[in-house]
């Protein structure tokens, strides 16, 4: 068995065993009193130095090694590397929480982020591999000819990848600041160092082999806590198989709890609070000055009556914290109103598909569920950092097979995430709901301290109602080790896994941006005669510049940029998918068609997202352009329209322009080869 493994497989087996031994050693040390903070440092140092080691061993001065790992990555390992490349900080930390909060509706992410690989396998990977160049703009440039399409492709690739990479580096900052208590900004630059050690010296070759190492860590880290939790709750350590029974218990608990008198009362109180805020917002600015007068009158009265100093100070603080002007008051009160409205809504059953009170509401849920799947699927099959991975296998056959391995390795995480959510929900419904607030388990208070859990006893009965509890989605994965009563070493493991997920995705994205700039723009367009050495120097300096730029942006904690990550799927999907697929399967597709389709599709996606999502852009001083969504489709699925428009535009424009005589040759070369060429 062992002898049948390849040299590489044996290396990674040693590595995995070494990592498990390291965890074991830390567990023993913790029992002997090693403080949690040191455990965090140990994980951080161990994993990052492993990545650095691989990065240094894989350093290279060869262009083909730097861009496509010398095309020597076997299917199995390319699958693992793609898995790490694909699964981001959001998949690792956020997905289970999203599933916890939205139940069935969240499963759109589980389907959407996996089913795109069928499209990659059947429509793209074999053809990209047989084409055998370096980037996605390369492919489009060769198929359609001309620099214009290359530039549009580069712009779309950078647009889709840059926000994404910022979000990964931000994720690193969050994880390091939470688990090793580094300052957030320092954490961001630790992340930057972690990314550069992998990619700077060795390009794609080093990134590939570190991604394999990162995949192993992240999957162990993701599955371990929930397997232990599953064993504790059901006696079976395979959570994916048994959470169906737990889901049934959850449904029973939901039925008992959702409409208890105390819950109804709490929700009614939130509704009243929301109404109060709505009234206050309507009566601005009088309501603000009225509130100010009332508070100062109260303070004066207390002062006059020699009340306790403590009460006066509290009221004075309240007075100081009042909004400064009507503008700020409106923003703040609207937030408070929406949060109260959210809590006043009757909760949704976890397993219920397309929940809604009327058939119409259910249909809107259904349309959005399918639209989101569509968008994420097409986006998955079009994100350049994933597609370039299929240039790195030794053959077309291995490219096809590596998509199979990719999906298998990715599925392990996506099949586990819904189990996380159900176990967490069971825990909340059985050990938190209807429990006196003073007797809540310890992890609630610990996470309330950092603001990820909020509890408010609105009906003042001293007992926690579900409506009074709010969880940040991240808490589900982060707190599971504590919920299951595991030692801190497991929390450290989860942090190391999240770090691996964020770093590996950031590496892949960064390399995509860099090769777009250095290979497609500099080498292909400006200096086709550049020497190999110069091309590598340009690549490495671009990498450094882009990485530092991304880290600098991430250090500002840009809220809007983080919410723009979901746009990447719509942008990549509408820019690349129609042009690639029609380019491969339809000989008649022409340059003008592809160019028009890419521009129209991407523009429409961005236009739709912006107009549905925002009503004004204060920086540009424009406002009042918000619009009603088409067919009730939410802005995060805006790519639906962009992709369809892209396909239609390419077809129509191609049919009215002259066919390209060179297309047939190109297509023959990527569809079939029997030894004469190459």
């Amino acid at each position: 068995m062992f002898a049948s493994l390849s040299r590489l497989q044996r290396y990674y087996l040693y590595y995995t065993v070494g990592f498990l031994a390291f965890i074991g050693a830390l567990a023993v040390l913790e029992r002997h009193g090693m403080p949690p903070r040191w455990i965090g440092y140990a994980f951080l140092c161990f994993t990052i130095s492993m990545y650095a080691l691989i990065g240094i061993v894989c350093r290279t001065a060869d262009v083909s090694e730097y861009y496509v790992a010398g095309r020597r990555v076997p299917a199995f390992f390319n699958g693992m590397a793609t898995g790490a490349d694909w699964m981001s900080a959001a998949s690792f930390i956020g997905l289970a929480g999203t599933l916890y909060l939205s139940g069935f509706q969240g499963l759109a992410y589980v389907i959407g982020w996996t089913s795109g690989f069928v499209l990659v396998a059947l429509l793209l990977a074999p053809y990209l591999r047989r084409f055998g160049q370096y980037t996605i703009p390369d492919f489009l440039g060769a198929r359609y000819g001309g620099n214009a399409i290359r530039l549009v492709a580069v712009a779309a690739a950078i647009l889709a990848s840059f926000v994404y990479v910022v979000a990964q580096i931000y994720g690193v900052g969050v994880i390091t600041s939470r688990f090793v208590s580094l300052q957030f900004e320092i954490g961001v630059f630790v992340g930057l160092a972690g990314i550069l050690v992998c990619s700077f010296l060795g390009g794609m070759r080093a990134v590939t082999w570190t991604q394999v190492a990162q995949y192993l860590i992240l999957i162990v880290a993701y599955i371990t806590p929930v397997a232990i939790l599953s064993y504790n709750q059901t006696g079976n350590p395979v959570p994916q198989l048994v959470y169906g029974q737990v889901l049934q218990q959850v449904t029973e608990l939901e039925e008992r709890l959702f409409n208890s008198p105390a819950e109804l009362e709490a929700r009614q109180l939130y509704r009243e609070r929301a109404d109060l805020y709505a009234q206050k917002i309507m009566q601005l600015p009088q309501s603000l000055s009225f509130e100010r007068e009332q508070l100062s009158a109260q303070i004066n009265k207390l002062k006059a009556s020699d009340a306790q100093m403590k009460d006066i100070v509290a009221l004075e603080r309240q007075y100081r914290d009042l909004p400064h002007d009507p503008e700020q008051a409106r923003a703040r009160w609207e937030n408070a109103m929406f949060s109260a409205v959210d809590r006043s809504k009757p909760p949704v059953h976890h397993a219920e598909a397309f929940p809604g009170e009327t058939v119409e509401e259910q249909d809107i849920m259904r349309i959005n569920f399918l639209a989101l799947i569509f968008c994420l699927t097409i986006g998955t099959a079009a994100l350049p950092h994933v597609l370039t991975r299929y240039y790195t296998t030794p053959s077309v056959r291995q490219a096809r097979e590596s998509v199979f391995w990719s999906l298998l390795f990715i599925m392990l995480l996506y099949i586990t995430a819904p189990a996380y959510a159900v176990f967490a929900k069971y825990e909340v419904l059985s050990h938190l709901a209807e429990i006196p607030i003073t007797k809540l388990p310890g992890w609630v208070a610990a996470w309330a301290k950092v603001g990820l859990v909020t509890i408010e006893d609105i009906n003042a009965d001293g007992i926690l109602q579900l409506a009074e509890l709010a969880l940040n989605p991240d808490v589900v994965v982060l707190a599971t080790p504590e919920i299951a009563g595991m030692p801190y070493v497991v929390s450290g493991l989860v942090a190391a896994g999240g770090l691996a997920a964020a770093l590996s995705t950031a590496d892949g994205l960064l390399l995509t941006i860099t090769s777009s700039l250095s290979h497609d723009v500099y080498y292909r367009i400006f200096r086709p005669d550049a020497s190999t050495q110069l091309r590598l120097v340009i690549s490495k300096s671009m990498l450094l510049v882009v990485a530092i730029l991304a880290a600098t942006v991430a250090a500002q904690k840009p809220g809007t940029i983080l919410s723009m990550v979901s746009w990447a799927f719509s942008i990549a999907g509408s820019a690349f998918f129609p042009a690639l697929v029609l380019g491969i399967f339809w000989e008649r597709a022409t340059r003008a068609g592809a160019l028009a389709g890419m521009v129209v599709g991407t523009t429409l996606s961005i236009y739709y997202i912006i107009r549905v999502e925002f009503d004004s852009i204060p920086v540009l001083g424009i406002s009042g352009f918000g619009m009603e969504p088409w067919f009730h489709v939410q802005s995060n699925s805006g790519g639906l329209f962009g992709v369809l428009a892209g396909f239609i535009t390419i077809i129509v424009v191609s049919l009215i322009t002259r066919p390209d005589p060179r297309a047939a040759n190109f297509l023959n070369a990527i569809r079939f080869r029997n030894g004469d060429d190459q």
Partner: protein
Amino acid sequence: MTAKADIHWRKTRRLTFVLIACWIFVNFGLTWFARAINEVTILGFPLGFYMAAQGTLVINLMIIWWYNRQMNKLDAQYGVEDD
């Protein structure tokens, strides 16, 4: 284009389109009826929930596996070189 390459491409295309049709049926067709099929219970899961959380993913993996198997056969049959 040689006749051999032509037949190979036609067969590849047919396989691709049939499998894509299956994929659309499972990922979008079945999912559309998730609410209805949730009435059925399998392994303790409501069927609609199970399909979205696991079933669809497994079927997708099998589609890729089947495609690879058929393409390997087809390539061998028509003597497609694989570097």
